[in-house]
């Protein structure tokens, strides 16, 4: 089987309250990726548009963006798996290229969360769970992850301070990422002293909402070698699902969709967790990164806290995680998030991550979760 590579990456700066329309926002990520790949719109054989539609006033954004980006008459369509939409987009692009349908595919992610009011946004986010049996009790995303945090603490002795340490790390890298929405330092005292949102999670355990866009240009092996001096290869792709409702969960100390997706991705790549040099984990909440350490096999179950206590997930540690600030500081514009994570790993493997560079990184991993562990995507990348 041929290889499939990434030949261009781009993202907008993630901001609060983008002052422009969704077409202009999405164009920023597309423009940067096309300049990176040195391509023209006619070189793109198909486009996949990834976002969460409940934020968009525009119906069927794929049609809008394809026209605005000069991608007519090539095929375009929409993919949604909430927060993991653009990782799912990558999976579909990979499939289309392996099937021989297309040679060069653009995976375009965007979200203008400020398109609707903050109250509307909270209510819509809550409806990303079982609206018939759970929403009537007044659920919210932070509270769902908080229940996982409580279970993890009770089972393994993880502490609120361990979670705060993850936030401190994210902020230390968010400060040096010019694309991040939150560029300030967060001290341990500040994180631990922040107001509770849904116990045991506090304000600084939660990611920053942001508007943003990302774009990944994916190509067949032949086209990647022809068009790119430094293609980054897709070595493994895993995707899985789990119950949308909490009673359907076997455990609250990890996400089974992530474990299953990781198993598939490592298997396809023929690699183990020890082979990964740098990783992007879906830290929508600090507890989500803690569970990712264990679900991805970077730590044994219950030992995730040792990784952060010993700074093993910082640059220079055993397995640097989210050294671009993560969702916590870089921001989490739903549909753009996976593409931004893939961009970070691509830049790392090309040695172009600047102050965030993990020296000599050869293999990288992206862990991207939709909803409270409904959809799990794990992707592994490598270079020549």
């Amino acid at each position: 089987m041929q290889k499939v590579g990434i030949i261009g990456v781009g993202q907008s700066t993630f901001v609060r309250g983008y002052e422009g329309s969704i077409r202009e926002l999405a164009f920023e990520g597309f423009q940067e990726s096309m300049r990176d790949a040195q391509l023209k719109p006619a070189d793109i054989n198909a486009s996949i548009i990834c976002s969460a539609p409940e934020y968009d006033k525009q119906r069927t954004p794929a049609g809008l963006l394809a026209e605005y980006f000069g991608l007519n008459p090539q095929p375009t369509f929409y993919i949604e798996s909430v927060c993991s939409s653009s990782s799912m987009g990558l999976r579909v692009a990979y499939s289309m290229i392996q099937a021989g349908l297309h040679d060069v595919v653009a995976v375009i992610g965007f979200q203008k969360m400020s398109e609707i009011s903050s109250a509307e946004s909270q209510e819509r986010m809550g409806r990303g769970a079982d609206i018939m049996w759970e929403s009537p009790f007044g659920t919210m995303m932070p509270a769902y992850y908080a229940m996982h945090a409580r279970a993890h603490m009770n089972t393994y002795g993880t502490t609120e301070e361990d979670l705060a340490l993850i936030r401190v790390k994210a902020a230390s890298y968010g400060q040096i990422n010019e694309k991040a929405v939150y560029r300030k330092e967060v001290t341990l005292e500040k994180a631990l002293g922040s107001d509770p949102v849904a116990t045991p999670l506090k304000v600084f355990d939660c990611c920053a909402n942001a508007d943003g866009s990302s774009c990944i240009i994916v190509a067949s092996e032949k086209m990647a070698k022809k068009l790119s001096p430094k293609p980054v290869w897709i070595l493994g792709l895993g995707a899985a699902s789990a119950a949308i409702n909490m009673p359907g969960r076997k455990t609250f100390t990890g996400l089974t969709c992530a474990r299953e997706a990781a198993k598939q991705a490592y298997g396809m790549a023929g690699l183990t967790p020890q082979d990964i040099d740098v990783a992007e984990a879906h830290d929508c909440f600090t507890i989500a990164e803690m569970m990712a350490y264990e679900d991805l096999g970077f730590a044994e179950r219950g030992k995730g806290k040792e990784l952060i206590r010993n700074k093993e997930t910082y640059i220079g540690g055993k397995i640097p995680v989210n050294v671009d600030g993560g969702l916590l500081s870089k921001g989490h514009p739903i549909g753009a998030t996976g593409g931004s994570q893939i961009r970070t790993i691509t830049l790392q493997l090309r040695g172009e991550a600047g102050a965030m560079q993990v020296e000599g990184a050869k293999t990288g991993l992206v862990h991207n979760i939709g909803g409270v562990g409904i959809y799990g995507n794990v992707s592994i990348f490598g270079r020549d």
Partner: protein
Amino acid sequence: MGFERFGTVSFVAQTKVAEFIGYLDEGKVMGTQCKSCGTKFFPPRNDCAQCLGSDIEWFEITGKGKLLTFSKLIYAPAGFEGDLPYRICVVEYEDGVKVFGRISPSIPDEDVSIGMALVAVPVKLSGEKIAYEFQRA
């Protein structure tokens, strides 16, 4: 119709398992069981994902459950502000059935701990609304 009475704000009005509300009125929290293969479901469902049948019967969630995990909300989504603060939770029963809901405000925070025994009890809300909560066993 009927299911719009469930909880503080219901997002679904029509369902084939709306009888759940009638049972709550009678003081019972019920799940469904597949008549063909015997699989028990909570939340209740009309259709069986094990054998793909749609012939179900109701069973009552009785006895003591065990608190698996919980969170106390300080902020609420639109429409739930008046309920704050409240604690959502998951409770597991001996037959493996798990139930999502709220912990009764009658139990103070300091008495809530993982593993504690709880019982599911229907509670009337304002207007015609009805739900259930977990009380001390």
